[in-house]
């Protein structure tokens, strides 16, 4: 709320204030009614004169007003702890009104009874004193309703505090000098016509204060008009008869005005609350839409299976999981937890999620991603929030998982023939706290059939009346499902956690991600054929291999190079191995799909010749000095990853290997 005065702080810190005021109001009402009934009874018995009819009328109205005030407070009571700010002020005004009315009723009951002259005097003074308080709170409530916190309001507030102090003390002078009123010998109240106007000053100040608040407020016109009505009612009541002693409807009018404005503001707030709820719902939707949630996520990728789930505790949480293909062979895996809940955490989470993915897509290592994200978040982080992140990058070809952990829960890993075990990984500092935090990578090799389970602390910290789910129970639970698919594992875990917590509230988001590494089913294609070692047949020797490479998706540029490399080697064999006779050449090839690779073995039974021993051509030589020759094998060496030669059983065996990107 707008005004953070000492008074509101005082009220906000004390949760018992509303129940206390409620009980006090009831006590005042009971006492007032009891006094009224006693007075009537005394009249019946003939001890006291009849009550003036205008007094009886006023008292009736005022008791009704007290009733209304109590009912209003009663409606607020069930949720008294949650209410703060203006609701507490509101109840305080109602209570101040009740005090004021209480003394007013007693004063009217005591009036014109000579025996009660002194009591009457005290009550009159109390009425004036409590009235000052009532006016003050009435004004304060208006500034709250209008959300005033400008300079003018601050100045008017000071005036009001001074006026409150002054007009609580001023009536006391009446004990010694009839500044406001006199009580005559008959015990009847009468005004001091010379200075009586003084007792109306607080009211006038209040009216002007409220008008100032209306003028300076930035609220909508609708609210301003309603507050104008709020001040108009008391003014009208005074105009209607308040100036004539006897008919006292001012306090009643003020209570009615309070109830009216409260109802208006309440319904207005409900409307706001409704739209806020709608926006919160939208935020939840946006957040959910940001997390990959269509499963199976990569139906055409057989080498891994992934599943993830998030169960937020509030509508929007600070947890997130994420996974994405960085390229064909690298899968990014993220699980993270922002140190807060609700909309601010959700915004923080979205920013973190985007940054992590963006940096991970640069194909840099997890520690570098975390270092960069941390620097970027720290440079702008004005909140006290931070985020724990576990980031892993899985090489889908090799099963090697490179990961870095920024203060997040330890991953749980299952080897193909083992059980899920918690892994003691290297931890770095949380992200968003210290810009110089250092992160480290670690590597784990996931064999085919390995499973990885990462989660947020909502899992081990799920709570029931007896305690926490805990790490041991987490491991125990996941082992029950360890032979199932990631989807089934997460479903099982969710069930186990629900079974454990029972009806207890969920305190934290429960987020889990599970990936199974299946690896590639390598397909190998072997070819083997024999040709006459003739230059004219080289094309035919190369063609089947190029076709097979094309089948596994090797691009034409790479195929060109393979042709060139094979051409050079085969040209050598065909030209020199058997010269001047002829012979045969055997070509064996092994082509795998994952990783895409080629292994070529070229065998001839010609003269022993190791092409790898040929000196590389002098590439820096000038044209005149350049020798013709040696180029072919040089080209081949450069194209292939590996070349090896052996002489066995009078055969030259040349093996060439190439792995394709």
């Amino acid at each position, binding site marked *: 709320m707008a005004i953070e005065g000492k008074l509101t702080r005082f009220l906000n810190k004390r949760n018992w204030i509303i129940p206390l005021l409620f009980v006090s109001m009831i006590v005042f009402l009971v006492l007032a009614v009891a006094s009224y009934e006693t007075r009537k009874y005394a009249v019946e018995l003939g001890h006291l004169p009849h009550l003036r009819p205008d007094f009886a009328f006023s008292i009736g109205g005022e008791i009704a007003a007290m009733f209304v005030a109590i009912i209003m407070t009663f409606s607020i009571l069930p949720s008294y702890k949650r209410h703060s700010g203006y609701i507490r002020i509101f109840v305080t005004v109602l209570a101040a009104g009740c005090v004021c009315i209480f003394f007013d009723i007693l004063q009217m009951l005591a009036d014109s009874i000579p025996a009660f002259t002194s009591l009457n005097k005290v009550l009159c003074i109390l009425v004036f004193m409590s009235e000052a308080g009532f006016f003050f709170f009435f004004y304060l409530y208006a500034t709250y309703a209008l959300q005033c916190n400008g300079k003018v309001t601050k100045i008017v507030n000071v005036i009001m505090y001074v006026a409150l102090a002054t007009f609580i003390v001023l009536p006391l002078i009446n004990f010694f000098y009839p500044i406001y009123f006199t009580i005559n010998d008959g015990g009847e109240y009468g005004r001091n016509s010379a200075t009586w106007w003084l007792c109306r000053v607080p009211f006038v100040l209040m009216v002007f204060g409220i008008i100032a608040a209306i003028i300076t407020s930035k609220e909508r016109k609708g609210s301003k008009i309603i507050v104008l009505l709020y001040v108009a009612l008391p003014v009208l009541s005074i105009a209607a008869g308040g100036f004539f002693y006897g008919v006292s409807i001012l306090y009643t009018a003020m209570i009615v005005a309070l109830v009216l404005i409260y109802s208006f503001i309440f319904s207005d707030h409900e409307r706001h609350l409704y739209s806020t709820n709608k926006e919160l719902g939208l935020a939840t939707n946006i957040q959910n839409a940001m997390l990959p949630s269509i499963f199976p996520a990569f139906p055409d990728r057989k080498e891994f299976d992934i599943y993830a789930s998030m169960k937020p505790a509030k509508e929007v949480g600070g947890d997130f999981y994420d996974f994405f293909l960085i390229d064909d062979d690298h899968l990014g895996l993220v699980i993270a937890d922002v140190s807060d809940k609700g909309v601010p955490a959700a915004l923080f989470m979205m920013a973190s999620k985007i940054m992590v993915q963006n940096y991970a897509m640069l194909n840099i290592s997890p520690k570098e991603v975390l270092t960069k994200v941390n620097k970027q978040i720290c440079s702008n982080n004005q909140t006290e929030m931070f985020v724990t992140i576990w980031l892993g990058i899985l090489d889908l070809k090799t099963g090697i998982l490179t990961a870095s952990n920024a203060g997040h829960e330890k991953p749980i890993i299952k080897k193909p023939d083992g059980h899920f075990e918690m892994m003691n990984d290297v931890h770095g500092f949380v992200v968003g706290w210290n810009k110089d935090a250092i992160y480290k990578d670690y590597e784990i090799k996931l064999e085919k059939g390995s499973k990885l389970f990462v989660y947020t602390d909502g899992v081990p910290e799920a709570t029931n009346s007896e305690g926490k789910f805990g790490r041991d129970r987490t491991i125990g639970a996941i082992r029950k499902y360890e032979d199932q698919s990631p989807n089934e594992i997460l479903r099982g875990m969710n069930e186990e956690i629900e079974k454990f917590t029972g009806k207890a509230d969920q305190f934290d988001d429960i987020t889990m991600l599970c990936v199974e590494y299946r690896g590639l089913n390598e397909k190998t294609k072997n070819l083997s054929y024999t040709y006459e070692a003739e230059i004219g047949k080289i094309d035919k020797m190369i063609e089947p291999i190029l076709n097979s490479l094309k089948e596994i998706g090797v691009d034409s540029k790479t195929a060109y190079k393979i042709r060139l490399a094979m051409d050079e080697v085969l040209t050598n064999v*065909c030209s020199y191995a058997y010269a001047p006779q002829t012979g045969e050449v055997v070509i064996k090839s092994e082509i795998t799909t994952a990783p895409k690779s080629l292994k070529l073995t070229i065998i001839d039974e010609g003269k022993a010749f190791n092409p790898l021993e040929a000196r590389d*051509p002098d590439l820096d030589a000038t*044209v005149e000095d350049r020798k*013709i020759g040696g180029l072919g094998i040089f080209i081949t060496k450069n194209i292939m990853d590996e070349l090896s030669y052996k002489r066995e059983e009078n055969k030259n065996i040349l093996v060439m290997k190439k792995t394709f990107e």
Partner: protein
Amino acid sequence: MNIRQERNGDKLVLYIEGRIDSNNFQALSDFVKNNLSGVKDLTLDLEKVDYISSAGLRTILQAQKIMDAQGKMCVAHVNDDIMETFELTCFTDFLTII
């Protein structure tokens, strides 16, 4: 492989078509040995050549050596694959490639 020549005084342009490899480099090699006398400006147009092996490279080197003695030579319209081979073997150091 086909070779088409276009002569203009002491200028000669050879339009080569097909592949230059161990199987056929001889034709080009022979042409170079026998037909360059009096040529001061030789252009090898490789626009329609899609493959050159080391045998082809040797022939080009041979032509370059001859032309260095009697004039100049340049190679035109080299495709990407062949350019890579030129670069790998540092032929780019002495060839004039346009």
